[in-house]
C-alpha cells in the first residue's frame, strides 16, 4: 500500500481511539486491538506490544500507540525503513493525543460548570458499565491460540499458559503483587518451561 495512505489511516485510526477511548489505557485496548489486528500485526505481536508498554515508563496508551505506529509501517510488505516507521510512531501518538487536547481545552474553557449537571451524569451512567464491557472484551480477544496455544497443537505450552494466566490473575488481584514483577516472573517461567 502507498505509504501516504498508511499514514492517513494511522492518523484516522488513532484519532478515533483518542476520541472514543474511555476508561484510560486499558479501556482503550479493545479499541486499539480491533483496529490494528489483523490489518497491521498479529494478535501475538499486539500482546507483546502491550507487555512491553506495561513494563516501560509512561502511560500505557501512549506506549501502545507509539509502538503500533512503528509496527504498522515496519510490518508492511513494501519494506519501509526505520525513518518511515519513526514517522508512523509520531503520527499515531500525535493522533491519539489530539482529541484530548481539543476536548480538554474546550472543557477547561467553556464546560467546566456543566460537568456536574444531571444530563452529563446520566450519559455516564450508561458509559461506565459499557467501559467495563470493553475491558472484558479486550481480555476475551486476547484469549486465543497465539497467546495460549491449544490443547491439540501443544498440550504442554497450553497447560503452562493457563497456569501462568491463573497465577498472574491471583497474584495481582488477591496478593497485590506488582504487575511488572509478575511479568518478569512469567518471562522467567517461559524461559525455563517453554524454551
Amino acid at each position, binding site marked *: 500500500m502507498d505509504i501516504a495512505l498508511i499514514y492517513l489511516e494511522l492518523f484516522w485510526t488513532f484519532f478515533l481511539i483518542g476520541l472514543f477511548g474511555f476508561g484510560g489505557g486499558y479501556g482503550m485496548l479493545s479499541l486499539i486491538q480491533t483496529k490494528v489486528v489483523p490489518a497491521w500485526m498479529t494478535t501475538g505481536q499486539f500482546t*507483546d506490544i502491550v507487555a512491553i508498554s506495561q513494563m516501560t515508563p509512561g502511560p500505557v496508551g501512549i506506549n501502545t500507540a507509539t509502538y503500533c505506529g512503528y509496527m504498522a509501517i515496519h510490518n508492511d510488505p513494501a519494506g519501509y525503513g526505520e525513518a518511515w516507521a519513526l514517522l508512523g510512531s509520531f503520527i499515531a501518538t500525535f493522533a491519539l493525543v489530539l482529541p*484530548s487536547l481539543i476536548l480538554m481545552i474546550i472543557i477547561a474553557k467553556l464546560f467546566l460548570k456543566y*460537568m456536574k449537571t444531571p444530563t452529563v451524569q*446520566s450519559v455516564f*451512567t450508561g458509559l461506565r*458499565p459499557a*467501559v467495563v464491557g470493553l475491558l*472484558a472484551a479486550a481480555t*476475551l480477544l486476547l484469549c486465543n491460540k497465539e497467546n495460549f496455544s491449544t490443547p491439540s497443537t501443544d498440550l504442554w505450552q497450553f497447560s503452562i499458559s493457563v497456569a501462568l494466566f491463573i497465577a498472574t490473575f491471583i497474584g495481582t488481584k488477591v496478593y497485590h503483587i506488582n504487575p511488572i514483577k509478575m511479568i518478569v516472573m512469567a518471562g522467567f517461567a517461559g524461559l525455563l518451561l517453554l524454551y
Partner: protein
Amino acid sequence: MHYALLKTFFKIGLFTLGGGYAMIPLIEAEVVDKHHWVSKEEFMDLIAISQSCPGVFAINISIFIGYKLRKIGGALAAALGTALPSFLIILLIAMFFHRFQDNPVVASIFRGIRPAVVALIAVPTFNLARSAKITWVNCWIPIASALLIWLMGVSPIYIIILAGLGGWAYGRIIKPTA
C-alpha cells in the same frame, strides 16, 4: 514557565510505571506540593474530569494543568512533556526488539509473558466493575458489550456511542432527575 511545565511532566512521564492511576501520587506531589500550580481541591476535581473524558488519563491531566497556567502553549508543553519519554523509550525498544524476537530465548520468554499480560488486563476489568457500581440491574450492559465486540466483531466505538445515548435517554425519559 513553559519549560518548567515541560520539564515537570517529562519527569512524571519518565518515572511512572504502569501508567494511569499509578501516576496520580507523583503528579500530585509535583503540581500540588512542589510547584503549587493547583490546590489540592482543584486537583481532585481535575482527576474526576480527566477520568470521565476519553483519551489517555495522564495526558488529560497534563493538558488541563498546562492550559490553566499558560493557555494553549502551556497545554502543548505539558502534553509534550508527558508523552515524550514514552515515545523515545518505546521507539528505542521497537527499533531493537524485532531483531531479537525470533531468537529462541526471547521467543520463549514472551511465550511465558503473553498469558500473564492477558491476566493483567483481566484484573482491572473486575476492579473497574466495582467502581462503576455494576449491579444485577445493569450487569447486562458490560456483558452485552463484551459479547458484541468479542463474538460479533462490533466496533467498540459504536458501543460507546450507544451506551452514552442510552444513559442520556434513561436519565431523560425513564428516570428524570430534578
